[in-house]
């Protein structure tokens, strides 16, 4: 398994990584996301800012892949179930060198490879078409079964969200992953407690989440999804676990993390940001950057 410092090929032009450099990666992911948000003037920016740390740890600590060859057979697969988080994944793929940085100007525009909702056919590095929520984990079961058939050592990471847990197919996938002992599956739940109609804990509620996945036969960890050290430890534990069961990392995150005036908005599932506020957002992000 690739470690944060051991993959010289992947990071040829970048300095060796440490947790500090992971924070730097997360900062850049947030910055790319804000710049894409500015193109449209609105969007799922709060989610992107919220999961930036998770994506930094995924792409720059945990996963193996080749930026120049996104279909490399031995890569780890990253399935984005929550298609509207595409802005976040594009930011990570830009930071990872899979998508050229200048393409962020095309986000959500005509003929762009970066549509508002993530689709496999559009974007290098996008493994599935998400967006119709509840698909990711069930798809992941198929990926994992296929990889096992191929005796592959690759992991399948599947990012889904708390609001999405209302879809029954998530639980079909959760049940099945345990039945098939899919130890190559690492689920990541972004718990930001926001969905379209309000706080996820109020719309239908989703707790006790850890107990639910434990009862489905999963290895469960729950961490602060904006704490990079905690994420690194959780991803390491998930990958190194020697038990024949799927693993899940429940990540409690803060919507719009890193930009205080957006964090404070009560309803930030879909943010509209005034033109003059984008520069302010970038400045605040820069101000809060880990030295």
């Amino acid at each position: 398994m690739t470690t944060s410092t051991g993959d010289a090929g992947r990071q040829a032009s970048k300095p060796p990584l440490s947790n500090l450099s992971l924070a730097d990666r997360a900062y850049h992911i947030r910055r790319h996301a804000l710049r894409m948000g500015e193109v449209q003037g609105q969007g799922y920016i709060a989610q992107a800012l919220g999961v930036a740390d998770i994506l930094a740890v995924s792409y720059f600590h945990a996963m193996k892949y080749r930026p120049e060859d996104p279909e490399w057979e031995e890569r780890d697969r990253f399935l984005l179930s929550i298609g509207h988080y595409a802005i976040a994944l594009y930011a990570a793929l830009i930071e990872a060198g899979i998508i050229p940085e200048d393409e962020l100007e095309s986000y959500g525009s005509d003929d762009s490879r970066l549509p508002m909702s993530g689709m496999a056919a559009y974007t290098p590095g996008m493994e599935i078409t998400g967006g119709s929520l509840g698909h990711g984990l069930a798809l992941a079961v198929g990926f994992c079964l296929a990889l096992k058939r191929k005796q592959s050592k690759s992991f399948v990471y599947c990012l889904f969200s708390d609001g999405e847990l209302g879809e029954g197919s998530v639980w079909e996938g959760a049940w099945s992953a345990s039945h098939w002992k899919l130890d190559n599956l690492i689920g990541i739940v972004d718990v930001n407690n926001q969905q379209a109609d309000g706080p996820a804990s109020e719309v239908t509620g989703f707790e006790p989440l850890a107990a639910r996945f434990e009862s489905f036969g999963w290895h469960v960890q729950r961490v602060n999804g904006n704490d990079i050290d905690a994420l690194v430890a959780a991803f390491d534990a998930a990958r190194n676990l020697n038990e024949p069961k799927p693993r899940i990392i429940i990540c409690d995150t803060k919507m719009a993390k890193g930009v205080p005036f957006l964090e404070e908005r009560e309803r930030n599932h879909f943010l509209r940001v005034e033109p003059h506020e984008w520069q302010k957002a970038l400045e605040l992000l820069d101000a809060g950057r880990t030295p």
Partner: protein
Amino acid sequence: MRRSKYTRPTWLGEQGEGGQGTADKPRLTTSAMIASLAGADQRTKPAPFGNALSALAETRPEIVGLTADLAKYTDLHVFAKAHPDRFYQMGMAEQLLISAAAGMAREGFMPFATTYAVFAARRAYDFICMAIAEENLNVKIVCALPGLTTGYGPSHQATEDVAIFRGMPNITIVDPCDAHEIEQVVPAIAAHQGPVYMRLLRGNVPLVLDEYGYTFELGKAKMLRDGNDVLIISSGLMTMRALETAKALSGDNVDVGVLHVPTIKPLDEATILKEASRTGRMVVVAENHTIVGGLGEAVAGLLMRSGVFPTAFRQVALPDEFLDAGALPTLHDRYGISTRAMTDSIKGWL
């Protein structure tokens, strides 16, 4: 028109009498899901899909079979027995079945996923649409109990499956007639790169088309017999009924041709237009499907768009209703898709 739940069947008589039927009303029972559509003296072949897939898999290592607790009722159990390591029992979870098949297809395998047509069309639609069709993945969805092939009522009768899948881009829809055809469809859809929805007849499946020197070609409609008065355009088991109807009507000096259209999407427009353009023939489209959105409307739309207007155009199809439960022969008569009912309908239209 649905019956009242508070009215006893009239043939039972008053409460307390036995339920043995009467001389003029024999007691027909609901056909079980594994019942054959074959007539008593009809030639059949067992499990043509399961046997054909098992044989094909010998030379195609990428083929895997998945089901949602219906291996036995989709003939996939034959494959499971022949290739146990390539069989995936996904349990009673159709959304998972389809998604898992999509995931395996993305990783280079060719999944054959089986369930009942109602569950694929209604329950797993979004998953087939987004995980498979939109990505044009190489998944073959093979579904038993298409149209009216069970007496269990609307929960199991996929009377609108073709209408549902016709609206889905990228997907190929195949509706084979008999065992002879199913055996040929399996390698043909495996050779086709892309998603396929196949309506499956299972169990002891009638054997008919071998007598017509027929070979299946994906996307091709074929004339099985010529006739000057009526052209029946049909798919699936209705082609079997069309051939029987043609024989019956020949006794009345009505000359009936039968054009078999096993691939409903994409439609073999050239052949249909060529045959429907021939002057002096009534065109009758016969399908084991609701009159809404199936082969009949596909053909009607094609003819209208192309400026082809036959002497008359009629449809033999199921009504736009939730159908009754009961015994299959009764229901086929009641809803007009038995040979007898179809023959009577065409006579009435002439």
